[in-house]
């Protein structure tokens, strides 16, 4: 059995060490390159601000155009404490500012995350605008309105025997560099933690991330609060750095600059925003100072930005990483080819069924009564009574449009039924969400693949396994993946079961169709369900792949209940014990495969009254 390998961990602490070295070397090297210390300090503050934003945008996929609100809030709270309130201790004030920004971020997130995608972007813009106006007007007594808050002191680190006083320029640099480094180390831990993997799952496919049992709303809110905390700290440092908290921290331009710097430097890289800030400030200096372009330097920047979005999606750092990856990847791909995508399902012990399955419940594992779904005037399902015994393998067939997929969606609580009740393992699950139901041990593999496309095969399975092992929501954002008990075994088991053990490090996008289909089943399996629904697992497969998949279905049936929809009746009737036939949203007939083959009503439904043995 191969060891579970986490790509970012191949050389321990490589990113941390390189960053530390670069930060220590900077004050010795950069002056010779003509960099002013204040510029370097500004880059660090923007870079820190950007780390949090990158977790939100680059990792979780939530593009906010309203980070200025949190940057300004953190900065204003810290600056207010240090100036008007006469609070003496700079570092404590920065911490309070950070906490305040995180708290505000939590409230803002509650509103903004009610919707996703473009709505989220629009709402964050609107919220930031509110903060801007509130800061300037109703709260101007506290924030100084358009004058800002001047006279923010610089930190003194009193160690008892000696005290470090940080002032401006290179003297302040070590303090800012330390804050940045701390921020980066924490962020690296976050993105390598189970939470970090789930963040990326949400970016790639939020619907599936929820369907495998993660409370994605909770995780999105968490990403938002993390980004808010970083923004708050960076805002506080801005005040300290300039000895003045400027009100224009709240402007839309601030949010826009952050977005652009992150994209220029490279999203999803953590250091990208720092690089982006360096590019931005360098270009500003160079175009304005050296080329004497004046205010139109921003036009050049805008054009560069548009070109970058068009042609270099991953930004500078991402581009460099891609080039390095291509060299390393060329070698690794060689091994991957050797592992051969021949779909052979080996005999391996089955992933143990869900923990809830063992709790002495007898009676049908699933019972639906009077299940009805109407879309306006269209009736998809009407009064379906359906019951499956524990350990059974049930097939569902029916002509296209019979309402099979809608029926599945209701059973997994993806859509709420118009009427009727669903009882799973003796518990009424009607009205629960898909996440809760998956946590209870009922999940589905999709008719159309729902995978995490830019992640590797192993990461895909990992995401699903994490939901079972950690529950739907946990705050272990600083824990290591390797510390989740049983994770490695479960991932490895699942990979071997679906015949993808040799393909663990391959990105999903590079898989063959049959492999993707098996991974789709693997995602459902990795959450160790006691009841697994499979929506057309054989569709679109070659005869050889079908044979292997039938074997796979047989092997996973041990110790769990399966309900399978498929049109391939020969294969299906071979596996299942009973068959339910749906027609026009109702149960037409139910019985053993042999009975169904002979049933006149079924033959009529499929063949329009022509007699004879039913064949696929």
């Amino acid at each position, binding site marked *: 059995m191969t060891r579970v390998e986490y790509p970012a961990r191949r050389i321990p602490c490589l990113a941390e060490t390189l960053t530390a070295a670069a930060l220590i070397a900077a004050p010795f090297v950069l002056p010779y390159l003509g960099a002013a210390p204040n510029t370097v300090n500004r880059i660090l503050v923007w870079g820190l601000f950007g780390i949090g934003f990158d977790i939100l945008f680059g990792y979780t996929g939530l*593009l906010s155009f309203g980070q200025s609100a949190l940057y300004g809030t953190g900065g204003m709270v810290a600056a207010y404490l240090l100036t008007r309130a006469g609070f003496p201790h700079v570092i404590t004030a920065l911490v309070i500012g950070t906490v305040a920004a995180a708290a505000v971020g939590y409230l803002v997130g509650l509103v903004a995350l009610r919707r996703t995608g*473009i709505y989220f972007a629009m*709402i964050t813009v609107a919220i930031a605008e509110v903060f801007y*106006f509130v800061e300037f007007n109703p709260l101007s007594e506290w924030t100084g309105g358009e004058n800002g808050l001047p006279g923010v002191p610089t930190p003194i680190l009193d160690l008892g025997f000696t005290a470090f006083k940080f002032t401006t320029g290179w003297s302040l640099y070590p303090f800012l560099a330390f804050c940045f480094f701390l921020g980066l180390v924490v962020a690296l831990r976050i993105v390598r933690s189970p939470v970090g993997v789930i963040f990326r799952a949400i970016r790639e496919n939020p619907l599936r991330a929820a369907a495998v049992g993660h409370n994605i709303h909770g995780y999105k809110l968490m990403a938002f609060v993390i980004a808010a905390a970083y923004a708050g700290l960076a805002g506080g440092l801005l005040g300290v750095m300039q000895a003045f908290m400027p009100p224009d921290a709240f402007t*839309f331009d601030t949010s826009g600059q952050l977005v652009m710097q992150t994209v220029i430097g490279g999203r999803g890289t953590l250091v990208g925003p720092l690089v982006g800030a360096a590019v931005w400030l360098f270009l500003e200096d160079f175009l304005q100072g050296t080329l004497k372009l004046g205010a139109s330097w*921003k*036009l050049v920047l805008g054009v560069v930005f*548009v070109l970058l979005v068009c042609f270099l999606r991953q930004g500078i750092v991402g581009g460099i990483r891609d080039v390095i990856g291509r060299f390393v990847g060329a070698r690794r791909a060689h091994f991957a080819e050797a592992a051969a995508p021949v779909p052979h399902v080996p005999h391996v012990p089955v992933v143990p069924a869900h923990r809830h399955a063992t709790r002495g419940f007898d009676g049908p594992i699933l019972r639906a009564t009077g299940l009805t779904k109407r879309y306006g005037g269209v009736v998809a399902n009407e009064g379906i009574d359906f019951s499956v015994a524990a350990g059974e393998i049930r097939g569902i067939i029916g002509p296209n449009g019979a309402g099979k997929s809608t029926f599945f969606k209701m059973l997994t609580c993806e859509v709420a039924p118009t009427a009727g009740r669903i009882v799973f393992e003796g518990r009424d699950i009607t009205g629960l969400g898909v996440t809760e139901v998956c946590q209870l041990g009922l999940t589905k593999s999709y008719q159309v693949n729902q995978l995490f496309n830019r992640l590797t095969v192993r990461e895909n399975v990992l995401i699903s396994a994490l939901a079972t092992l950690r529950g739907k929501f946990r705050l272990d954002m600083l824990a290591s993946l390797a510390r989740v008990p049983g994770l490695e075994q479960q991932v490895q088991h699942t990979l071997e079961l679906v015949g993808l053990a040799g393909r663990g490090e391959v990105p999903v996008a590079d898989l063959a169709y049959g492999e993707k289909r098996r991974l789709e089943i693997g995602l459902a399996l990795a959450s160790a369900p006691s009841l697994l629904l499979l929506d057309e697992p054989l569709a679109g497969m070659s005869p050889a792949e079908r044979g292997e998949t039938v074997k796979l279905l047989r092997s996973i049936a041990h110790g769990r209940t399966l309900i399978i929809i498929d049109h391939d009746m020969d294969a299906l009737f071979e596996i299942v014990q009973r068959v339910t036939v749906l027609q026009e949203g109702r149960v037409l007939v139910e019985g053993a495969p042999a009975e169904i083959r002979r049933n006149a009503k079924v033959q009529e439904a499929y063949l329009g009254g022509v007699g004879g043995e039913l064949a696929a």
Partner: protein
Amino acid sequence: MITWSNFVSQLFNGLALGALLALISSGLTIIYGTLGVLNLAHGAMFMLGGYAGYAAFQATGSFVAAVATGAASLLLVGVGVERVLVRHFYHRPHEDQLLVTFGLSICIVEAIRFFFGSESRTVPAPAALSGITSLGFAMYPTYRIVLMGIVAAALGALFIVLYRTRLGMIVRAGIEDAVMVDSLGINVYRVFMVVFGIGAMAAGFAGIVNAPVVSLTPEVGESILVQTFVVVVIGGVGSFPGAILGGLIAGEIISLTSMVNPGYAYVMLFAAMTLVLMVRPHGLLVQPGRE
């Protein structure tokens, strides 16, 4: 001191602003509804329409020519932007669409700053419309009354295009299901190009007719864009009636709150948006499950 006539004239201001927001938002919303792209450069296009009209006014001295130029040039800009830039982003994630249109807005704003500078410019209303009219209960600037009529007419024209023409039928069908329209043998890309042009034209037209009321600066589109977002969130994305209702609501909220304390205008606007998000997350005039 809030007097009756003060209140009525603020109500009128709200109506004027609301109609304007409705026009701009309907441009944004039909683009999103049909193409699936949220155009972050929409505010910049509003501003660009104003400047294009300003340039025409400087050259000809005719307000009508200014309005015609503002609208026509934005139609061309919209078509060009769709053809050259936006078209390549239909199959990329929403974030990339947002980023590229955001970048475009920076380019437009900075280009205008390059050619016209940062100081504000005004396009005066035609002499015949520049006085003050008595409405019986209050005195009100004539041009603003006319403006309401112009904007209402533009909305009416947009309504006719959307609901009474073949193109409109295709656009509305595209909002429901663009893939289906495509498979019916209609060249959706050409429709997309036209829709983007019309959407941009709505913004540009609004930009120039509003220029006599609010003077032009390169940043004038920024706050309009934010207000437009609120309108669209309130009314529901992709809904033309929603944009009109949302526009009127937002216009009145801004206007009436400003009468009491302008600092709270955005707070109230935001409160209204939050309320809508809580009660009807898909917007007032959109049925859930249609996105």
